């Protein structure tokens, strides 16, 4: 029954294709490891030597940037490249449904992001339940970014136009929470972004509290992105 509705074979074919394609284009892998690597270097070189800076300062900062940037940029880049190269059309002509393609590609990006999230958790030195909470908070952000990245990819005709949209959007989502760390007046705006809320959660995974306000902001972001995604899905 599930097989006839979801067609996991097609989803799995898209997923495998993406993995093979990535290993032929290793530059894309750099994006997934760059931020954990930066977090490691900054933690070891700066945070651990400074008494007034928490050891996890750079882990929190880079992980929230990672959440706002990497899934979105990658998802948009993959979809727009497939559109530009007409390979997406080839898949559609083989009767791969858009949702099957998005599930296969999204799963691939999601899994790579999980590896990044685990790396951040290990660099932060979290263990047990705290580690699980940290990963769960990151995954929430990754899903939201994936949704937005998919929408941008579907709305863009080619990689150039996708980049023109995704870079400024991801800069705002990823860097505004970081700027808000140093300038509290930015926080009055950034608190309405899911990335800021994720940063709040990531900065204190031991006492991770899902307040009503946090839930409403993240839920609101999710609804907006879902709206954009559905619009893009129908249009694309």
């Amino acid at each position, binding site marked *: 029954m599930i097989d006839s509705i979801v067609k996991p074979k097609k989803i799995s*074919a898209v997923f495998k294709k993406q993995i093979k394609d990535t290993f032929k284009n290793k530059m894309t892998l750099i994006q997934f490891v760059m931020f954990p690597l930066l977090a490691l270097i900054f933690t070891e070189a700066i945070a651990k030597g400074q008494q007034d800076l928490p050891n996890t300062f750079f882990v929190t900062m880079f992980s929230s940037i990672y959440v706002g940037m990497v899934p979105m940029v990658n998802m948009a880049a993959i979809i727009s490249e497939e559109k530009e190269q007409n390979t997406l059309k080839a898949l559609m002509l083989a*009767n791969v449904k858009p949702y099957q393609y998005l599930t296969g590609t999204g799963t691939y990006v999601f899994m790579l992001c999980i590896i990044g999230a685990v790396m951040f958790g290990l660099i932060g030195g979290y263990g047990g339940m705290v580690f699980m909470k940290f990963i769960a908070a990151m995954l929430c952000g990754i899903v939201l970014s994936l949704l937005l990245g998919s929408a941008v990819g579907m709305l863009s005709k080619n990689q150039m136009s996708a980049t023109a949209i995704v870079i400024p959007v991801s800069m705002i989502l990823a860097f505004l929470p970081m700027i808000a760390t140093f300038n509290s007046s930015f926080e009055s705006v950034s608190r309405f972004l899911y990335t800021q809320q994720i940063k709040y959660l990531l900065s204190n995974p031991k006492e991770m509290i899902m307040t009503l306000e946090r839930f409403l902001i993240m839920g609101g972001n999710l609804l907006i992105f879902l709206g954009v995604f559905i619009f893009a899905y129908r249009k694309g």
Partner: protein
Amino acid sequence: MDKIITMNHVKKIFDKVTALEDINCSVMRGEIFGLLGPSGAGKTTIINILTGQMSMTEGQARIFDVSTKHLMDRHYAKIGMMLEDSGIYKRLSVHDNLLIFAEIYGVPKSRISDVLKKVGLIDSAKKQVEKLSKGMMQRLILARSILNQPEILFLDEPTSGLDPATASGIHEFLFSLRDQGTTIFLTTHNMEEADRLCDHIALLNTGRIVEYGTPKELCHRHQTNKSIRILLNDAEVMLLPNEKASAAKIAALFENNSVMSIHSSEPNLEAVFMKLTGRKLS
């Protein structure tokens, strides 16, 4: 033979511009059918409608006796497509490109070697697509389109931009597919290709089918200037009207042993198209 594709009064309007008008034709199972027309005539639009990628404004189009508006997975499983803008994964190898689609179609992996042998790419299976020539890429797309052993194969300008030797190789391959029972629906603006390949052709001009039949039928139907072309031993060319009165002259030439070759001069599809539309095909 039964009809595998039918189109009745198909009309397509894009933003108030009529792209197709009253298209009526049918394709028999197991034949090579050619849609011949210049760029912009509406050939690709017809393929897009027949493959369910585009809806028509009016009329009916059916494949396997099913409306193209209601094609389902089981119908697509019997259709192969090689369209002009079909993309290939350039970073992947020839084999990996086909492997993706073998998994999508649910065909065994052994089929990949079979089709690569058929299109002459078996020795390049591990080659990265980026390193292939245009002709090899075209053959790879052709291999992909027959991976699912389709009953109908749609080919949009299959030999466009290829050298004559590669094009000829593809022609031979299409004949072998036809002989195995595959129905081939191709578009081209190359009249020699249409003449050589097609069992039936439709001439398409500005969204209308202006003539339909076998290539020979069309040429004979529009043969206005019937003549006999005689090449004499001294390299002189003599044109005589194709009528009884010429017989005596030809006999005299043969008696003098001065004929090198003799041919009837028949119009080709290019001339037929020109006569019907006042336009050139390419």
